[in-house]
């Protein structure tokens, strides 16, 4: 297994490097000249050339890419002399529009994004697994059919539509909830909670529906397994048959899917944060797109890709822990 893990980590490093290269190349080709942005409105061609040289933009692609990688590992300095700006490691780039390093910008907004992501994940995991179990137990009854209908609805509703519906009903019409604002938890836990309820629901609905279906299907499949017949033939009480023999095999795949989904949330929360105006990383990405602030977009893209790749490896490792067939070779 250690050999396997080493291979896995090497593969992960490879994919991350490729993601960096690909992203960097795409933005290198597509993005508007950063020198123009730095220069500002009253600008002369000579000044642009100077800035370009100053920032190393005149150098070939590979040189620039290597200094970007260097920045990731050990930080870098943009420009020279009085105008030089420091970007500490891990440096994901520097936004000349906001005069801030991308890493700092992400750090400032990460707590909000994390709150949205973790809350939604807890919500969908609970709702999804519980309703999936109910669906499996009540398989074929009207309860199951109603739940199937609801999950199809949950899968189909675009989250910005749901966000607008919820806001209109709960905030405008019924006035049960305040309009979401990122209130820090320490300030007022009650308001913090009320403010995040809608974002959590909106982000969680699609996932909850998918997890309901996944859990239901897995449990129903597991109930057909021969070892369940063995457990019943042993005379085990139904609750033991369920708890020990049905749930563990049925929920193992859910755990792994959850790891992947959670790792991909940075991209997934973009719409939710935008709709509710929550100042998280996703909203920052959307705003940067509007402002054409390419270093920020690239930084967020890379970060999100890092999460997915690392999530992949974590899931693999977790799997070796929870599934003895992987953990202990025959």
């Amino acid at each position, binding site marked *: 297994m250690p050999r396997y893990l080493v291979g896995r980590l090497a593969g992960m490093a490879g994919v991350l490097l490729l993601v960096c290269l690909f992203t960097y190349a*795409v933005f290198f080709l597509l993005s508007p000249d950063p020198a123009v942005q730095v220069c500002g409105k009253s600008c002369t061609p000579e000044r642009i050339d100077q800035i370009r040289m100053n920032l190393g933009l005149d150098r070939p692609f590979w040189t620039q890419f290597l200094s970007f990688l260097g920045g990731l590992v050990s930080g870098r300095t943009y420009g020279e002399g009085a105008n030089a700006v420091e970007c500490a490691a891990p440096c994901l780039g520097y936004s000349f529009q906001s005069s801030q390093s991308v890493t700092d910008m992400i750090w400032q907004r990460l707590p909000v994004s994390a709150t949205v992501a973790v809350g939604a994940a807890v919500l969908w995991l609970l709702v999804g697994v519980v309703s999936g179990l109910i669906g499996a137990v009540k398989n074929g009854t009207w309860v199951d059919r109603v739940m199937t209908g609801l999950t*199809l609805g949950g899968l189909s509703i675009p989250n910005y539509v749901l966000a607008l*519906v919820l806001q209109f009903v709960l905030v405008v019409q019924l006035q049960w909830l305040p309009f979401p604002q990122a209130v820090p938890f320490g300030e007022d836990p009650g308001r913090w909670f009320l403010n995040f309820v809608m974002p959590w629901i909106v982000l969680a609905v699609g996932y909850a529906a998918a997890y309901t279906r996944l859990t239901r299907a897995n449990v129903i499949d597991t109930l057909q397994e021969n070892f369940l017949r063995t457990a019943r033939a042993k005379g085990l009480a139904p609750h033991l048959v369920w708890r020990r023999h049905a749930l563990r095999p049925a929920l193992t795949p859910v755990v792994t899917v959850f790891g992947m989904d959670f790792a*991909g949330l940075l*991209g997934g929360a973009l719409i939710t944060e935008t709709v509710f105006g929550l100042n998280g990383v996703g909203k920052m990405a959307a705003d940067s797109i509007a402002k054409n602030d390419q270093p920020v977009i690239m930084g967020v893209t890379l970060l999100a890709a890092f999460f997915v790749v690392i999530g992949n490896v974590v899931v693999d490792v977790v799997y070796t822990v929870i599934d003895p067939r992987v953990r202990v070779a025959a």
Partner: protein
Amino acid sequence: MTIAPTELEVELSADSGPGGPTQPVGPPPAASRPRLLRALSRDVGAVLSATYIGLIVLMAVFAPLIVMVSGWTPYEFDQTAIDPNLGGVPIGPWGGISSTHWFGVEPGSGRDIFARIVYGVRVSMTIALAATALTTALGVTFGLLSGYFSGKVDHAISRVMDFLMAFPALIFMIAVLSALPAGNRGSLLVVVISVFGWPYLARIVRGQTMSLSRREFVEAARASGASGLGLVFREILPNLRSTIIVMVTLAVPGYIGTEAGLSFLGVGVVPPEPSWGQMIASSVSWYSVVPTYFAIPGLFLFLLVLSFTVLGDRLRTVIDSGEAR
């Protein structure tokens, strides 16, 4: 000898006669097309979904005719339908729904919502269908190749798939689309969606191809002289038909949603060309005053996605039950 083993075998075989007490020896016959349709036609959800999809498709096809009847094109500004003193709020209840504007008008501009819905679906459907077609072509081809030719080919394709799936597709799509010139957004959308979408189909096709490749009929074909691509497309592809049908039906709503989402974020279809996602996006600042403005396109969008999802779900149920081994 009273009973020859031949008779025994006939007696025990699957077609020993109707209602016989023997269990079928082989797997049940594969779901054929007419059987599929018959099973689906008994399902209320599937019928309703298919009907709605049919109506929407007709609406898209005959959009110019429909708009002639309703009287307004999607690009006309009707200043008489909005109140300039109130910042352009539609005149009349329910967002200005009236006999002239069936679904009301856009706040601020006074454009006819009905006409924009009718035209908006053309964009959404075209993009979703084109993206589905491209994704399916890519996904099936690479999935088949990867699943059948294990080793280097599989390794290379799988790495590309891993790489694409590791990408935060939404952010990246937004970034790329925002950076590219707005000239031909429609085809760009299709290409970008497909490039990031095919690995998900390919992964499933790959898995099925791998398990089919282990079936003896593939070996039998090889022993018959088949090799390489001929074997893949003649022997394996027909067995993937059901999978592909289901995947396609489920991909369409996904891409309708993606297109709407990208338009909602402002990197999709370029105004003034209407699209449902974009209509919902522009309704965000009005939702408390003119709820119909987001409710109508929202409902149309939701129902369309739901219909495809239900149809795909039912298709899968029918196919799974008919082909359970």
